[in-house]
């Protein structure tokens, strides 16, 4: 089963998984005992106005037809029109998703860098100060709710110290860079606007750290465990017997081997990030897909919630596929 077949099989599986997710999403959206039209019209609207709008939006068609339209649309990338913003959901997603993606990418970079360093240090200096610190740090990461940590850091770094900005993607009066990818860091770099880049970076640090905190904790734990495992292997003893310096043994030999289980965790953890965005974006007023779905949830804006969730599931599966490919590249034993 060469690489091509491996890829094909995985893509096929991904489509099935996404189809399953679409069914779950559609099932949930239509079973919730509340009608979206009422939500849009607000409290005061009389029943007649509601029924008129319901008919107009085709909510009175039987379930099966609506499901068929939804799936057909999803394949074409058209999730219908959002009840709230009244533009096609896909347009909204394209508008909001880069913000979430940028946040997730910076978060994953921070958590990989921090997570692996902490993991390696605590494995190499087992049960010493750094090990205890990193375990407490990861325990805190797993035990405190995201919004609590977010508010606390905002309070300290923005309100009391004023080192970092309060929220949002850019300063209130900075002009967003010309849109290429929708990610301000990349767009401003491409356009050479370095002060906007600096400002975007300052704005993304805190939310990315908070979003990535949980991921950092998990990566640190896994790296530590797999590092301890690898350091016990025979080939480490061989490397030492070749008189290689300690750091060379750790970073050239041990680290590369312990990367393999860590990579798989990064795939899983990335999923957690996309979903953690829902809370982090609210706390840091970050106009991303997470908030689009939550506000959609508040308004039972079915098309938006269905489209957004399906899109996140798609990105999650894609990320996992990439991780598996990385896994194969890193571990020669996997390459048949």
């Amino acid at each position, binding site marked *: 089963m060469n690489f091509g077949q491996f890829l094909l099989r995985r893509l096929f599986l991904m489509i099935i998984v996404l189809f399953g997710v679409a069914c779950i999403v559609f099932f949930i959206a239509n079973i919730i005992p509340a009608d979206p039209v009422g939500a849009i019209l607000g409290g005061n609207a009389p*029943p*007649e106005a509601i029924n008129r709008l319901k008919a107009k939006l085709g909510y009175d068609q039987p379930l099966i037809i609506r499901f068929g339209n939804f799936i057909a649309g999803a394949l074409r990338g058209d999730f219908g029109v959002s009840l709230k913003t009244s533009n096609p959901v896909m347009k909204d997603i394209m508008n909001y998703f880069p913000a979430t993606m940028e946040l997730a990418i910076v978060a994953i970079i921070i958590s990989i860098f921090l997570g692996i360093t902490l993991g390696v240090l605590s494995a190499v200096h087992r049960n010493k100060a750094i090990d205890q610190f990193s375990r407490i740090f990861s325990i805190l990461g797993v035990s405190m709710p995201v919004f609590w940590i977010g508010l606390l850091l905002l309070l300290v770094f923005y309100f009391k110290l004023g080192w970092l900005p309060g929220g949002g993607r850019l300063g209130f009066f*900075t002009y967003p860079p010309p849109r290429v990818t929708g990610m301000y860091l990349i767009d401003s770099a491409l356009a050479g606007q370095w002060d906007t880049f600096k400002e975007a970076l300052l704005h993304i640090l805190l939310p990315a750290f908070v979003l990535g905190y949980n991921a950092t904790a998990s990566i640190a734990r896994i790296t530590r465990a797999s590092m301890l495992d690898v350091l016990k292997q025979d080939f480490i003893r061989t490397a030492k017997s070749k008189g290689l310096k300690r750091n060379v043994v750790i970073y050239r030999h041990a680290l590369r081997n312990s990367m393999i289980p860590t990579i798989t965790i990064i795939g899983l953890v990335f999923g957690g990030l996309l979903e953690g965005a829902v809370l982090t974006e609210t706390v840091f007023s970050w106009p991303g897909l997470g908030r689009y779905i939550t506000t959609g949830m*508040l*308004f039972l804006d079915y098309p938006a919630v269905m489209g957004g969730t399906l899109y996140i599931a798609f990105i999650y599966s894609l990320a996992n596929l990439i991780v598996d490919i990385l896994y194969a590249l890193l571990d020669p034993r996997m390459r048949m």
Partner: protein
Amino acid sequence: MKRSFMLVFLTVLIVAVTGFAATPKDTLVIGSNTGIFITMDPAVAYEVLPNKIVAACYAQLVNLKAIDGVIVPVPDIAESWEISEDGLTYIFYIRQGVKFSNGDPLTAEDVLFSLKRPILLDSVSAWFLVDIFGINKDNVDEKIKQIDENTITITLNAPYAENITLGILSNMFTGIVNKDVVLANEVNGDLGTAWLADHSAGAGPYVLVQWERNNVILLEANPNYYGSQPPLKRIMIRDVPEASNQRLFLERGDIDVAWDLTPQLLTEAKKNPNVVEVKVPGHSNEYLAMNASWGPLKDPKVREAVRYSINYKEIVEDIMLNNAMLVQGFINKGYFGYVEENPFYQDIEKAKALLAEAGYPNGFEVELITSNTDTRKAEAEKIQADLAKAGIKVNLVIVQSSQMYEKYRAQGHQMIIAGWGNDYPDPDNLAMSHASYRANQLAWRNAWYDDYAATLCEWGQIEPNQDKREQIYKDLTEYWFHNGPFAMLYQTVEFWGIRKEVKNFEEAAFGYGMLFDFTKVSK
């Protein structure tokens, strides 16, 4: 449009200090949860803050002004108007020489197009015209006509009091849009509503320059405004969903106005010398309603017992921290027909006695549903504790507002905490909704099928004599107090935290929450 937009931001860029210092002199920065906004199309907009933005961008047929504490309809695009003898037809004379923000002249044709648009669009706010005035898609052409190039007539289905008609016509949906620009941006027959969601084509003091959803709304002064130029060149509304964040930004000076603070956050923010509290009487109310067709609540005595179990003073003082007015009638303070009386207070013995009389000596169990905002949750827990003292065991169900209204409209609730925001500044709007089940509004939802009250409401609607009309509403309120399905908690107070540099914000905000005149604010 694009060019001016670039120009504006370039100037802002040059003058911009880093994000941490105070906001620029010529811009008012408001922090608010814009996630809940839907559209800025005058024919469709239906929420609190968006209505105020629409009011700033569009001139209307008739407008409202607060003159010595009372809201009165005043001329705007309609320079003057006359009413036919039978009270059914209103003739409006259109002001000449008014220009839209892009310089086109505003003609009667634009007014006709703008008045018909909500009906043709089946828009949310169209129910005023359709369900009250009886103007619908079929008869719209003969009900709203253009007589000559500066006169428009509107014919109603009943001789409503002038105050009611003009109150309704001063709503957002009569915002005058530039017909040519709107039709130029029409997309498959939507009368330009998608384009107008985040653009403006009106003649108001400001122009909607940009709306990046969940991020920022920017208004800019309209150079062609027929009135005087507003002191502030720009209004910027930043999306800050978390109330506690709004407070941090306010105290740091990154925003000038925090729009959605909770009473507690405002009390804390006030301690900062740079922050000033602004309070203005609001136009909506907050009530506990009981489904008059469910179990024990069928019996008026039980409803009376519930009304005597609640400690209204503590709700106003401890939950709302005096950001509310103790008003127990359904007509708002500051409206014609307001009744000064507040008959209810917490008297547990009396409540228990009433319950015993009604056959429930040791109380009963009831489910109370409400929406999931911090204030509503606090009120629900407070009422749960108060009713428990009288032996009534309350189980709370806190849901999304959409689900709450779903159940409320289907009369599926037992007890509910909700609020009513007025649509037009006339007691009729409150009477019909709170007391007449025939209006299919709140009275109907709580299954209070009381013909006496409903009839009183209809009389009040068409009674020309002011004194008689006032007496009708007085009798209705007395009756409603002791038989209605409601326990009115308070009339809202609009409150904001603002920076001390912002001047005469209170004058701009006065108007029982119906109005917000950005042109009065300066820095």
